[in-house]
């Protein structure tokens, strides 16, 4: 079993789509497909192979190309893929997706396959100890309703217990289900009408949802979720200086790898890093920066710097009581 194999390659996927079409296509159609699905320079490799007939997979009719295959391409699963699927069937979250009968059917189809891994072979040593209740029937039902509504752009009426203890009742369109490995929890990125035809983003913990009622209404026009998220970022990013001692640079770069960031070298051994974030990430980012101690220096923005100084000031006053 090979993980790095041409059968999973980008070029094979592009060709699979081109060959599955039943209609003759022009070389321009082929170019367009390669530009959509291939790498930036794939055109330079694939087109000459097709034009020269080195990849003799099309019948030529003048300027037109027609697949030689008898029907659409269905590639069987490799042993590696089967083994991967088998491992997923033992995951604690699989019940969010599959009913018991579906699970049994797939287990039967994979009866001769060994799982690629067993859950006990992995250990998240710093994962929080209060995961969402994946085995709970209400949780599963809510999860599936959200999943369905998200795919259909459908409004749902959500009854929610906020972390502050208040009960909230609103119509939302589920935009994404966000999973945190650290918390082992799902959150719902939900869009809510904010008046004047605008939508705003709210984040709800799936485990705090009391009930969900699907509504008839659907989102009338698509919303660019990433624009909404980007618009929520502070104009001034967090600015850090990192002096590369004791592997600090690599550690910081890996630690903050999940943020949008930009790093430049500003001195022999000093690097400047900008991290973009919004209000909902602020406390977590502050805690992460504090965990590095003096290895990182916060330069700005003022708000972040002041939050850090306030904590340090409070710490000093506790020590010097």
């Amino acid at each position, binding site marked *: 079993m090979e993980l790095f194999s041409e*059968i999973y390659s980008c070029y094979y996927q592009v060709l699979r789509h081109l060959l599955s079409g039943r209609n003759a296509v022009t070389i321009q159609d082929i170019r367009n497909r390669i530009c959509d699905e291939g790498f930036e320079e794939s055109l330079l490799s694939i087109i000459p192979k097709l034009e020269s007939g080195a990849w003799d997979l099309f019948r030529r009719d003048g300027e037109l190309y027609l697949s030689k295959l008898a029907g659409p391409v269905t590639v069987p699963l490799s042993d590696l893929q089967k083994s991967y699927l088998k491992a997923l069937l033992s995951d604690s979250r699989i019940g969010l997706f599959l009913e018991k009968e579906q699970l049994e059917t797939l287990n039967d189809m994979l009866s001769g396959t060994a799982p690629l891994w067993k859950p006990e072979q992995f250990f998240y040593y710093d994962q929080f100890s209060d995961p969402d209740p994946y085995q709970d029937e209400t949780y599963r039902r809510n999860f599936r309703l959200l999943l369905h509504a998200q795919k259909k752009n459908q409004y749902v009426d959500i009854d929610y217990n906020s972390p502050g203890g208040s009960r909230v009742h609103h119509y939302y369109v589920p935009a994404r289900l966000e999973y945190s490995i650290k918390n082992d929890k799902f959150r719902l990125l939900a869009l809510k009408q904010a008046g004047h035809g605008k939508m705003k983003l709210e984040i709800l913990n799936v485990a705090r949802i009391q009930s969900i009622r699907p509504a008839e209404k659907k989102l009338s026009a698509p919303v660019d979720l990433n624009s909404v998220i980007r618009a929520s970022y502070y104009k001034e990013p967090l600015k850090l200086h990192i002096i590369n001692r004791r592997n600090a640079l690599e550690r910081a770069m890996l630690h903050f790898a999940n943020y949008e960031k930009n790093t430049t070298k500003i001195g022999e051994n000093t690097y400047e890093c900008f991290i973009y974030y919004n209000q909902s990430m602020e406390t977590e980012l502050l805690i992460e920066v504090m965990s590095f101690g003096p290895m990182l220096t916060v330069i700005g923005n003022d708000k972040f710097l002041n939050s850090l100084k306030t904590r340090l000031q409070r710490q000093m006053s506790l020590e010097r009581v």
Partner: protein
Amino acid sequence: MSDFHELIGSFPKTREYVRDFFVYGFKTRNDFKDKSPRTYDNERRRLESWLSPYIRKDYVSNGSNISLAIDSNLLDTNPLFRVWKTKSFTDNDIVLHFLILDLLRNGRTMTAEEITDGLLTEYEILFDIQTVRRKCNSYAKEGLLHKGKSGKTVIFSLDNSLAVQLKSNESMLDALAFYQMAGHFGIIGNELAEQMDYPNRTFRVKHSFFVHTLEDEILFDLLNAMNAEIEVQLEIKSSRNGSRSGTIHTANCIPLQIFISTRSGRRFLCGYVSRSKRFTCFRLDSIKRVCPMEKSEIYEELAEQLNRNRQKLWGVSFQNDEGHHLDTLTMTLQIMEPDENYILERLKREGKGGTVTRTAPDTYVYEIEVFDCNELLPWVRTFIGRILSLQCSAKSVEQRFYRDLETMYRMYHIETETN
């Protein structure tokens, strides 16, 4: 650059480049001192081609920097999965791939000779029978084809039923959309979902560390060894001396478990080193090669022993600098009741079973006994602003905490408030 090819034959070399670009994102040609300019140019051009939608270019005084602009909050896929889809192949490979699968569709069973004849009669392409047989055998080994016998004759067939079932099973496709983002070997889930033409548009991952997909080949070899309960020899590149100039050394161990940090995404192999009679963790991104050795006769016993030892493990270190078997860390915190009760929740949720005791109004003591208290310091620092005192049986840990605090006070000009 006439010898430029977009695809590559082997993954390990590229892994280094991608990792550097991902992690540092600012190296110029001059930073790659141990590579020829041509090698650098070709590698860089490949990366720019594979990852073009995510590349950011900045022009600086000594050349242009390229970096990867990847914000996991904004992405429905891991951009580095594209690196796994770059394996080179021959003209025969790709032509035979599609034609053999087409020929054997609808449950046909054929010998290599019949397949060779079919390729000529049905698609008008002449292949050498040895080439066809080699490809069929290779696909049988990968599981794409079934190889059987009819009497003494070797026959090939394919079974599409699982692929068909999967394609029509929306629930399982949703599961693939999720697990490619959040599970182990996300690349396999991604390729499967792509094969089913079902891209993820539903799930995001909050703490996602995309770079670690590059270690999946090493992880794959380690899991194979773990499943077979065999000892391995690891080729390890030191990460301390800079990412490209580290020296290579080898270590033998019995691989037992993969440890993962949710905060950095870093993965470690936890293995038993017979020579030192210790459990030891090795960073996956420092392992260059895994060579299988002998089967271990005490695998189960070691796995149980590790399970017991894990109770006293904070991170990945089984020993401390002071030669103690175990050390105790005691942290006294000011937590204003009831407004700051969420801090208590944090201690319970993140404190790995350490005890939390209320000793006075608004005062709580957290205490834990672990192998290496040094590993606790990053977590302890997240409580800065509430720590009344910190004591540790490893005095160096205690001293380091207060020394670092003093450094931070100086860095940020924090002074005692005077009323």
